[in-house]
């Protein structure tokens, strides 16, 4: 192409200023539809295929294997007596024995059941309370600091009080779980509501939503990521509080849970039972996170386009 044909040379004799696209730029309805379709496909990302990322599974498994090998290595060097620091093989053996006796299943089932029931009741109580506190300013100002404070207070502190009030019964365990979980869930929901872009409320009002509709159809779904964070923390606090309660309050009509197993190991001075119980408590926590919360959270964030660029 010769470059001497500059467009400037062909400018019309007319000297009026002419701006681009000041006037209609398309030539009709069909043309417009086509133009828009073209632009839409240019500006949209092509769909990426979702593959199984093996590093997500292999890396944590490898990390676990390395830790167990280091543990076995340390024990094999024989710095400490074997009954004080048992090795992974001793602990696995003890887990096998507990399984054979049926104690392991009983303990895991009892604790898990109590943890889940306590957590679900906490959710049912905390959700409406959190929503009302987040929406009604005077109530929030009045009770907000108290709720935040309760979250800092370790729920173990309630165990002595609960024993005096309810005796050594399941009520004691549930009370302690509630005091741990409810403030976390309320706080999570409130912070979720605080992070909602103010525009969403304006849109809701313009669309004619009533106060209740605004709360249930716009505020609650918009606050879901923060709320889910609160639920995760609420579950963690339930599980921890439950273990603390089970370790301290043993006997009475309280069944045999993982905390009770841990305490039994201490009474019998059997380190392998203690280690087994600790690892089982940890394992249940990890499994709940992996099987329940992680998939829900991932789905939630992906649907809102919030996962891109994260290191998950």
């Amino acid at each position, binding site marked *: 192409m010769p470059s001497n044909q500059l467009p400037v040379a062909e400018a019309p004799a007319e000297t009026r200023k002419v701006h681009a*696209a000041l*006037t209609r730029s398309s030539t009709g309805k069909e043309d417009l539809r086509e133009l828009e379709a073209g*632009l*839409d496909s240019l500006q*949209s990302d092509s769909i990426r295929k979702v593959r199984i990322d093996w590093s997500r599974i292999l890396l944590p498994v490898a990390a676990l294997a390395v830790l167990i090998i280091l543990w076995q290595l340390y024990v094999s060097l024989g710095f400490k007596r074997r009954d004080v620091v048992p090795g992974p093989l001793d602990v696995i053996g003890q887990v096998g024995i507990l399984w054979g006796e049926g104690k392991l299943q009983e303990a895991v089932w009892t604790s898990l059941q109590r943890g889940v029931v306590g957590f679900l009741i906490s959710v049912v109580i905390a959700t409406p309370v959190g929503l009302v506190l987040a929406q009604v300013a005077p109530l929030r100002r009045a009770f907000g600091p108290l709720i935040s404070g309760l979250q800092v207070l370790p729920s173990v502190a309630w165990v002595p009080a609960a024993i005096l009030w309810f005796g050594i019964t399941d009520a004691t365990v549930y009370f302690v779980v509630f005091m741990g979980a409810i403030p976390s869930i309320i706080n999570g929901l409130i912070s979720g509501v605080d992070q909602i872009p103010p525009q*969403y409320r304006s849109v809701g009002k313009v669309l004619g939503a009533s106060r209740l509709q605004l709360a249930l*159809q716009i505020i609650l779904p918009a606050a879901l990521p923060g709320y889910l964070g609160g639920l995760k923390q609420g579950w963690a606090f339930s599980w921890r509080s439950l273990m603390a309660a089970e370790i301290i309050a043993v006997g009475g009509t309280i069944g045999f849970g993982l905390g009770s197993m841990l305490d039994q190991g201490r009474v019998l001075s059997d380190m392998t039972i203690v280690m087994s119980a600790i690892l089982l408590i940890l394992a249940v926590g990890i499994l709940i996170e992996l099987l329940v919360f992680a998939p829900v959270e991932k789905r939630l964030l992906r649907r809102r386009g919030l996962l891109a660029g994260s290191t998950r």
Partner: protein
Amino acid sequence: MPVVLEHLGKRFGAGAPVLDDVNATIGQGEFVALLGASGCGKSTLLNIMAGLEAPTSGALEVPSDGAAFMFQDAALFPWLTARENIELALKLRGVGKADRRVRAGELLDLVHLGGAGDKRPHELSGGMRQRVSLARSLAQDRQLLLMDEPFAALDAITRDLLHDELERIWKETGRTIVFVTHNVREAVRLGQRVLLLSSRPGRVVREWHVSEEHRTDAGLAGQLTGEITTRLREEIRRHAK
């Protein structure tokens, strides 16, 4: 007359008035562009018309069923698909479930997004999001449609197309549109009438009629744009001291 503004004023707290003695009438089915520099109270005026804020003096007459509103950013709800966003507007208006589905489909077709109904807002381009937002404000089925710089954040190619699109939809649906912008060319491109709002306090200082010829003759449109720009700059220069 769907909209009448009489001696309308607005001040926040004890500060200087944002709007002072605003007078305007907007006829049924008219497309009015409200033009002004930043900080002239355009958005406040629109919020008052939408009922989101109350005026501190004067009176206004708006349709009793309120107004539809379109925001600068699409403000779509990210947890809903494009179709569900439109359906939510219909639901809050009290439309039955079966009707909602049909009506949302029609509205998506109207903005040429028939195939993208199941996409979520983050999967759509900025222009597509604004079209969903337009469909949602049309779902409100109000005679009066208020638009607050809806195309300000879009790239130039998309904006030019959406101008054509909005003009087409305005003609098809017969809505009364008040379109706020700080872009003179946009005001001339879209409005049948351009109202210029002064800054601090905001007041309608001048208005121009834009004829059909201005939309087909780029030279004529350019001339009018120049004239309005000159007047707008005078207004801005007043604040230099």
